[in-house]
């Protein structure tokens, strides 16, 4: 066997290939995408039921409610990020490939965001309007959710990789990720609240963007390392 027979595909091919496969899988199992969305909607509905239908109270609570619901929905979907791959052995194939694992996990995380974070962003204006959030602040909320869910997907993939294959993985995943997600939650909710109150909020957006960039540059490496460790 000569050397030219071992040409490996480029990094982009690895990233896009993993991304495409996970999107294809999501397309074939729409329930995995839809269930967290229904969950998100239901959690948001719980609050008016629990705290009463007073419009001022709802508008005041809206950013927090939306963000907590989004955080929980993301956690719900994160659980399955590596689980199926672990069970059918495809994780081992990723580890045994000449492609850098970081690239492949980044492809998977991107697919996770496209199928969990992005739908939340798209759905959120509906909920925000129902909560009487001022219409002018809705795009602020969508921006915070978009940036925040990117960070949550990246951060969560580290947790998912650490807990894959463990018995009580689901509960453990929440335990690991929730404290780490605190800055995202704080920046997200405060930014929307400030915007709703008519105050300067750009600081929060910058912080969220900075966090997302930081997570994008560091988290895939942690995820790859964690996956290697989990599959020993």
């Amino acid at each position, binding site marked *: *066997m000569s050397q030219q*027979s*071992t*040409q*490996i*595909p480029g990094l982009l*091919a*690895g990233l*896009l*290939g*993993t991304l*495409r*496969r996970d999107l*294809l*899988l999501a397309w*074939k*199992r729409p329930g995995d995408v839809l269930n967290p969305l229904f969950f998100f909607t239901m959690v948001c509905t719980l609050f008016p039921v629990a705290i009463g239908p007073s419009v001022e109270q709802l508008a005041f609570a809206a950013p927090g409610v939306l963000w907590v619901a989004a955080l929980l929905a993301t956690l719900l979907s994160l659980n399955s990020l590596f689980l*199926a791959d672990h*069970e*059918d*052995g*495809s994780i*081992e*194939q*990723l*580890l*045994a*490939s*000449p*492609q850098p694992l970081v690239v*492949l996990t980044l492809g998977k995380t991107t697919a996770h965001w496209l199928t969990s974070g992005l739908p939340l962003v798209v759905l959120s204006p509906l909920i925000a309007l129902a909560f009487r959030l001022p219409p002018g602040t809705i795009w602020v909320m969508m921006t915070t959710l978009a940036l925040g869910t990117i960070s949550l997907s990246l951060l969560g993939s580290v947790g998912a990789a650490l807990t894959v294959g463990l018995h009580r993985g689901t509960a453990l995943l929440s335990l690991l990720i929730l404290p780490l997600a605190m800055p995202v939650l704080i920046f997200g909710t405060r930014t929307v609240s400030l915007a709703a109150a008519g105050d300067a909020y750009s600081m929060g957006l910058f912080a969220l963007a900075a966090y997302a960039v930081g997570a994008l540059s560091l988290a895939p490496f942690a995820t790859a390392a964690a996956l*290697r460790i989990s*599959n*020993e």
Partner: protein
Amino acid sequence: MSPLFSAHNLTLIRGERCLFRELDFALDAGELLLLEGRNGSGKTSLLKAIVGLLELETGEFRWQGAPVSAQRQAFLADLVWLAHRTGLKPDLTPVENLSFESALRAFRSQDIDAALERLGVLRLRKLPLRSLSAGQQRRVALARLLLAQASIWLMDEPFTNLDSEGRTLLGDIVTEHLESGGLCIMAAHQEVPVDAPTRRVTL
């Protein structure tokens, strides 16, 4: 001349148990290495250690005269790992599953149909894998061997779930691979229908 692939002074410890200690073997082009031993003796662990999934306590593998650890990517580019779990997605069709491989390694995607044909599962190409029998799924997984352009085949009990015709077919495929200068390391607990120079390691 040094052998194509060799292992030196391998010691592997899993948890509390030492699976093997100071193990050596060597393998040249065209040779089959059979890993033998009872259940739990560390056959799969040794294969995983070759792929780099497990860390060795001591020792190293050498490939083309240099340590594998110094050329991991080139080594993996020339290797196919057929694990006990097939690594195929139950929701995808055989063609979709195999096409994904081209993202991971040098792969002849254009020949997928021919490979499925040879393995006798071409008519199932559009069905989701979950509707296939275990033996048929294994045949789809074997198609990866034919399509990947790799000289090292690592196989963990590849004959599992195959009928007698499938066993003969896989034996032929492995024999052809070895005749063309490849090499194969296989964990097997029974005799394999491969007609090639064979070395054995008992764990």
